[in-house]
């Protein structure tokens, strides 16, 4: 009797342990695979070509800088839109909206988060980009800015959903404490509720930006896909091409193990490293700025 119980215990703990470690193993395997397929690019293409500004694979120009800047500018644009809107919406839902309204908005926002990005891409091509072209008087509506708007829209529900949960979890007594001191609603939100929910709000932002960096379909449909080096803010309003879109568009038509193929994997590696850096940076911000007191609390 005792023996079987011990066995069951043993098997279950091992199974849980194994599934935990498997996450690490999978990340390691993926990274290994990327390295194996991507590193040959460093040998086959001279570094000066790889880090040049011309991407034209057919003629063996493999400069990935425009792709990197394209991804960065689109993502920054998206973050600038998604963060204020997302936090604003989350604050509205959790702190300001009356209960009945909140019960309508929250599910709607979450539904928005579940929309396939291709569908949003349609909207981008058919509605957003013609509108922007006319409204901003641009030669084309397919620009990095269009992509940013769309990506911002895609990231907002993620930010809202997680940030709202965090705000909602702040004990009511905190707010009452601040109100009783004569704080206005806004002062309470800004100085008490938001700081108390900080780690949750930052997680929301991080996941939202993560979603924006990795998004492919919608971006490929609306950014125009011109591999142009984007260095000035003005290039936000010209076409751009992101790393993800490049991989998605070209992977299907390259010869296996060709130079182009290796370079695409190399781009994947860069993308992987960038999102790793973003994640580490974000979580270190979350953990470092959390004082001992708040760790005890949360």
């Amino acid at each position: 009797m005792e023996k079987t119980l011990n066995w069951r215990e043993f098997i279950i703990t091992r199974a849980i342990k194994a599934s935990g470690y498997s996450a690490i193993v999978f990340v390691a395997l993926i990274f290994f695979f990327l390295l194996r397929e991507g590193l040959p690019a460093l040998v086959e293409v001279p570094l000066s070509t790889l880090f040049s500004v011309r991407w034209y694979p057919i003629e063996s120009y493999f400069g990935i800088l425009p792709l990197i800047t394209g991804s960065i500018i689109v993502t920054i644009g998206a973050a600038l839109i998604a963060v204020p809107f997302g936090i604003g919406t989350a604050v509205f839902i959790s702190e300001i909206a009356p209960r009945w309204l909140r019960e309508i908005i929250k599910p709607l926002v979450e539904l928005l988060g579940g929309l396939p990005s291709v569908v949003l891409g349609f909207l981008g091509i058919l509605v957003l980009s013609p509108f922007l072209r006319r409204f901003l008087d641009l030669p084309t509506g397919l620009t990095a800015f269009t992509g940013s708007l769309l990506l911002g829209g895609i990231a907002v529900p993620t930010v809202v959903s997680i940030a709202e949960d965090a705000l909602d979890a702040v004990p009511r007594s905190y707010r009452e404490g601040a109100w009783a001191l004569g704080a206005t609603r806004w002062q309470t939100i800004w100085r008490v509720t938001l700081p108390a929910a900080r780690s949750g709000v930052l997680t929301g932002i991080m996941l939202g930006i993560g979603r924006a960096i990795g998004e492919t379909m919608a971006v490929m449909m609306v950014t125009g896909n011109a591999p142009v080096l984007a260095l000035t803010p003005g290039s936000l309003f010209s076409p751009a091409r992101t790393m993800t879109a490049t991989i998605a568009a070209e992977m299907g038509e390259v010869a296996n193990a060709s130079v182009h193929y290796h370079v695409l994997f190399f781009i994947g590696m860069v993308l992987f490293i960038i999102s790793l850096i973003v994640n580490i940076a974000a979580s270190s911000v979350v953990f470092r700025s959390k004082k001992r007191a708040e760790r005890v609390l949360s």
Partner: protein
Amino acid sequence: MNKIVIENLSLQYSDGTESLRDISMSIRTNAITVLFGPAGGGKSTLLRCLNRLNDLTEVKAVGGQILLDGENILDPGTDTIALRRKVGMVFARPVVLPMSIRQNLTYGLELAGEKRKSRLDEAVERSLKLAAIWEEVKDRLDDPAIALSGGQQQRICLARVLALQPEVILLDEPTSGLDPISTGKVETALQELKKEYTVILVPHSVQQAGRTADYAAFFLQGELVEYNDGKSLFTTPKDKRTEDYITGRFG
């Protein structure tokens, strides 16, 4: 002198429960007025009317009026922010804000627009001393307030209210989570405070009510059963229900 005059105050929550029924009473300056009675009697609701904290919960109907220095604070035009600075409140569970001890104290003042560091430091020291906690925390004002013990946190909350120099202090079972020693410290602090302020206390036990009350009001199911000076009410209650409750026959 009467600081607060409550006239025919009634209150109903949105779910239909009636919390206060036709309450009329006057509350004196420089005294501790104790509101006591079994749970659900409306004591906390009454306290929350006095600084309009009920505005933020689901209240259906409020009737009657509350005059603070002759002005009806239930008037929709009342500046609730200014009111809450004048009528401070300490809660049952100490709610220190997620900041340092010093910031907890200066927070209310900063909200009120005070920026001068000397003034803030002065207020920190004065109010910590009044709340009988200065000696315990003076060397670590920049530590997070959460790290303090429950009893210390509660006195920080009291000090935080005092820093605003209110005129009325509302305390909603301020010692319910505290050990006897901390409770004693808070009660002693209250005796000092009444010299300058109007103190209204919801005690967490009849014993505490008896110990602290200059005036006492007994609440039962939303009704003010009896209101008298503390001594008479606890030694010769006029109402049978008050007597039963004090002697521990119910509640």
